[in-house]
């Protein structure tokens, strides 16, 4: 009997379907990716049952870090085409008699995260290249009644962009007096409607007694 000759196969594996699938996945992830924004200080937000997603634009965020430092951010990172950030910084400069160069304004515009720098450190902060120097200057925005810079940030942000919404993003362990001060500042500047950034959690409650 003649032997059945098996067709000799090459050991090559055809990777084309694999590549197809991978390119699909890659495209999907690239298009849906919204990068996690890093904060200068780790913020562990508390949870709530609220399901309202946080807005993307026209927002100002007051960030409360664990060590009671207060940061401020407009529109979550880099400036939009409307260039609110430059205008806000110019107004702040006028208030504190600091003249910012166009290069410094651009630096401020491009700065990706929230900042917690007092106005007299702002020039040094924008000039600094070393991230260590930068983070050393971030002592938090003064919020006490003697030098309430946060109030002016809120005020000028609202003047420049009247449609802005206020967000508070706080760490779970921030002490209440700091929160109270920030709420007072917002209330003082007639921001009575604002949102707290939280994580989602699910809670089931019924009126039935167990």
């Amino acid at each position: 009997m003649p032997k059945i000759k098996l067709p000799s196969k090459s050991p090559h594996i055809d990777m084309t379907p694999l590549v197809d699938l991978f390119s699909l996945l890659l495209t999907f992830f690239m298009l849906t990716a919204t990068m996690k924004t890093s904060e200068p200080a780790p913020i562990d937000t508390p949870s709530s049952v609220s399901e309202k997603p946080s807005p993307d634009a026209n927002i100002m965020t007051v960030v409360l870090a664990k060590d009671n430092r207060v940061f401020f951010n407009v529109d979550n990172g880099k400036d939009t085409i409307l260039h609110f950030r430059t205008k806000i910084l110019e107004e702040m400069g006028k208030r504190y008699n600091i003249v910012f160069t166009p290069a410094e304004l651009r630096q401020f515009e491009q700065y990706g995260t929230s900042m917690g720098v007092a106005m007299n450190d702002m020039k040094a902060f924008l000039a600094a290249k070393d991230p260590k120097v930068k983070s050393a200057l971030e002592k938090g925005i003064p919020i006490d009644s003697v030098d309430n810079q946060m109030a002016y940030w809120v005020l000028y942000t609202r003047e420049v962009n009247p449609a802005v919404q206020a967000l508070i993003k706080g760490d779970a362990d921030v002490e209440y007096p700091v929160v109270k001060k920030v709420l007072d500042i917002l209330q003082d500047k007639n921001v009575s409607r604002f949102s707290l950034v939280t994580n989602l959690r699910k809670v089931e409650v019924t009126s039935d007694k167990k």
Partner: protein
Amino acid sequence: MAEIIQEEKQKGGKRRPKKGSTHIDMTPMVDLMCLLITFFMLTTAFSKPKVMEIVLPDKIKKDQKIDPPKIADSRTLNIILGPDDIVYWYPGKPDASKPLQKTDFSANGIRQILLDRNLALFKKIEKFQKDVIAGKINIQPDSVRTAIKALKNDDDTGPIVLIKFYKKAKYKNLVDIIDEMSIVGIARYILTDIYPIEEVMVETALASAPKTLTPPIAKK
């Protein structure tokens, strides 16, 4: 697929130079893609942060004279948030002779207390939501919230909750208590300043509570 099988033809004496295989080695490409996919998967923030809206009343200017709204004692419920996630509460007017009642943020803690007082409204909201889910009430998803708001506005049986903060409270407590309000469906609550008398009450309550942790003794 991407391979073209070429048959070697041999004609006459002329020999063509042997053609290389048209196979492309895709392994490096797959490697790279794997890497990129992993990168994007890890950096993508899928769950967008949620927000919880709160509205504070306008601040009363110092020269303005507005009488505080009068509310019935029997309907008020005072909640004072203390240190270490402790919740103190008492109904009605502050009374230094009565000790504060102590509870916590667990499901059987402050939520049960609020739920007991707000049962009438809570049942109404619950029934409404069930009817919507069962399809008995035909309503746009957007108007559900408005309808619940209307139910809350019409309510005059539930408690009026005054939320106060002892100075050692945490931001988390603020979020948690407002969250409880929305879970239980409290129609009327307000964040107010703590009275000095209440501060004293909290301090006595803290002092009388058995200490679970002995504070380290500082040596000078």
